[in-house]
C-alpha cells in the first residue's frame, strides 16, 4: 500500500454544516486530499453565508472545484436541491459529511417546545434528510461514504444538554442503523466522534474551555483539523470494510472515570 491509496482524487464530496469549525476543517481536508467539495451551511443566516463562502474560497484556492449554498439544513427541499446541484456541477456524489451543528444548552424546564423541536430538527432530522437524499445516487453507483460528525454528547450526558444530547445520540445510532440497512448497497455509514474541540459552538465561553483543558487527559482541546482529517480516512478506499463505527478524536475524554 502506498499513501496514494488514501487519495480522494476524482471523488466528489458534499459537506453540510461546513459553516462550523469542524465542518470547514473536514471540507478543507477532503479537498486537500484531492476531492472536489460542495459545501452547505447549517442555518440560512448571513453569518453562516459568509462562513460557507469563505470555506468555498479556501477549497478553490487549493485548486479544487467547489460550490457553496446557504441552506437551512432542516429544510428538506434545500437539502435535496443542494445534493442535486452537487451532482450536476461536480458529476457524482461519493462522500457526504454531515457536520450539522446547532449548539444549544439550557435546563430542560426552561426549554420551550419550539426550541426543542428546532434543535432536534437541525441536528438530527437534517441528517436524515441529507442521508436520504445522498443514498439515491450513491446506491445507483453502488458506492458511497456517509460520515456523520457527532460529539461526546452523543455518547454521554451533560447538565443543560438534554435536547442537544438527544439529537446527537440520535445521529450516533442512526449511523449504526443506516450502516446495516445500506451495507449491501455499497454505502458505508460511519461517524467521527469529536471530542471537545476549539471553535465548537458549545464552547464559546473561554472559562468553560479552560475548565475542560484542566480536566482532559491530554490537557488540551482538539483542533478542528484533527477531527476533520479523520473524515478523510473514512472517506478513502482504504476504509471500505468499516461501517457503523465511530472514530473518536477525543484526547482520552471517554476513558476518564
Amino acid at each position, binding site marked *: 500500500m502506498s499513501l496514494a491509496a488514501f487519495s480522494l482524487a476524482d471523488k466528489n464530496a458534499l459537506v453540510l454544516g461546513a459553516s462550523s469549525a469542524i465542518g470547514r476543517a473536514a471540507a478543507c481536508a477532503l479537498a486537500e486530499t484531492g476531492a472536489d467539495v460542495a459545501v452547505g451551511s447549517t*442555518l440560512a*443566516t448571513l453569518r453562516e453565508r459568509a462562513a460557507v463562502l469563505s470555506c468555498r474560497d479556501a477549497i478553490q484556492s487549493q485548486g479544487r472545484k467547489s460550490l457553496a449554498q446557504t441552506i437551512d439544513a432542516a429544510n428538506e427541499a434545500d437539502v435535496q436541491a443542494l445534493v442535486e446541484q452537487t451532482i450536476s456541477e461536480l458529476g457524482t456524489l461519493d462522500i457526504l459529511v454531515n457536520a450539522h451543528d*446547532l*449548539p*444549544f*444548552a*439550557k435546563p430542560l424546564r426552561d426549554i420551550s417546545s*419550539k*426550541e426543542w423541536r*428546532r*434543535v432536534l430538527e*437541525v441536528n438530527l432530522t437534517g441528517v436524515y434528510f441529507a442521508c436520504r437524499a445522498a443514498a439515491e445516487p450513491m446506491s445507483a453507483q453502488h458506492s458511497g461514504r456517509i460520515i456523520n460528525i457527532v460529539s*461526546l*454528547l452523543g*455518547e*454521554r*450526558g*451533560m*447538565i*443543560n444538554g438534554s435536547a442537544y444530547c438527544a439529537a446527537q445520540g440520535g445521529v450516533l445510532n442512526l449511523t449504526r442503523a443506516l450502516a446495516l440497512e445500506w451495507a449491501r448497497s455499497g454505502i458505508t455509514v460511519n461517524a467521527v466522534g469529536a*471530542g*471537545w474541540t476549539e471553535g465548537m*459552538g*458549545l*464552547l*464559546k*465561553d473561554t472559562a*468553560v474551555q479552560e*475548565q*475542560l483543558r*484542566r*480536566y482532559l487527559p491530554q490537557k488540551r482541546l482538539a483542533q478542528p483539523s484533527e477531527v476533520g482529517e479523520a473524515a478523510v480516512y473514512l472517506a478513502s478506499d482504504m476504509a471500505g470494510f468499516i461501517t457503523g463505527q465511530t472514530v473518536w478524536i*477525543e484526547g482520552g*475524554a*471517554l*476513558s*476518564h*472515570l
Partner: protein
Amino acid sequence: MSVLDKLRLDGKTALVTGAGRGLGRAMALDLAEAGAAVVVASRTQSQIDETVDLIRAQGRRSLAVSVDITDSHSVNAMVEAGRAAFGQIDILVNNAGGATKGMFRPLDTIPDTHWQVGVDTNLSGAVYCCRALLPSMVEQGGGKIINITSGFGVRAAKNNYMYTAAKAGLINFTRALAMNYAEHNIQANLILPGIFPHDDPELIEFWRGGKFIPVGRVGQDAELGPACVFLASDMSNYMNGQMLALEGGGLAGGQAPCGFAPVVPLEEDSV
C-alpha cells in the same frame, strides 16, 4: 406470587467471597435477610466469624470458610465445604478483590508479582469460583452468578493498570458466562459499585464525601445489598450478562468535570 415475594430467597444458599467486611458483608447480610443460608468466605477468619454471627443473629444458617481466592485448590475446598454444609449452592457472589495502595504505580515500576497477585485476586479468583460451582449449578437446573466489578472496569484513572484491566476482564468474563450458561437457566450479571467508604471517616475524607459524584454523595453499604438480592432472585430471571451500576451518576458523564453545565442559547436568528 406477589411481586415482592419474588425477591425471597428462602431455601436457597448463597456463597459470598470477600464477605468478612465492607460490601461483601453488606451483601451477605441482605441475602440472609431475604431468606438465604450464606457461606461467608474470605481470607481473615476473625472477620468472617463476625459476619456469620451477624447472619445467625438474623435466624439464618451460615458458615464461615477461610479461603485464598488466588489458589484454585483452596477455592475448590471452599465450595466443597459449602456444599457439605447446605447441600447445594444456588447463588455465587464474586466480591473478593481489591488492590493495596502499592499496586497503584507507574506502569514501568510494576513488579511482576504485583501484577500477578492483583489479577489473580480480582479476576482469576472469580474464574476459579465459577469453575468450581457451575457444573453443580447445571446439574441443579439453574443458578445465579453475581460478579462485582468497578467503575475502573469501564473507565481509567491515573496509575491504575492492574485493577482496571482485571475488573474490565471480569466484565467480559461475565458476558461469556451469560452466553454459555443461559441455556442451563443460569444468569450471570454484574454489580458496579461506585465509591462506598463503609462509614470510615478517613475514606470519606479521602473521597471528599463524594463531592465529585453527580448526586453529591458517596454510597452507603446498605444500598448495595438490595441490588444483590435483586440479581440473586427470581425477579431477574431474564436479565443476563448485564451490569447494574450503583454509582451516583458518574458514568452518565465523565467527559467533562462533575457539574459542568454551560448555558448556550439558540442564536436569535436560528429559530
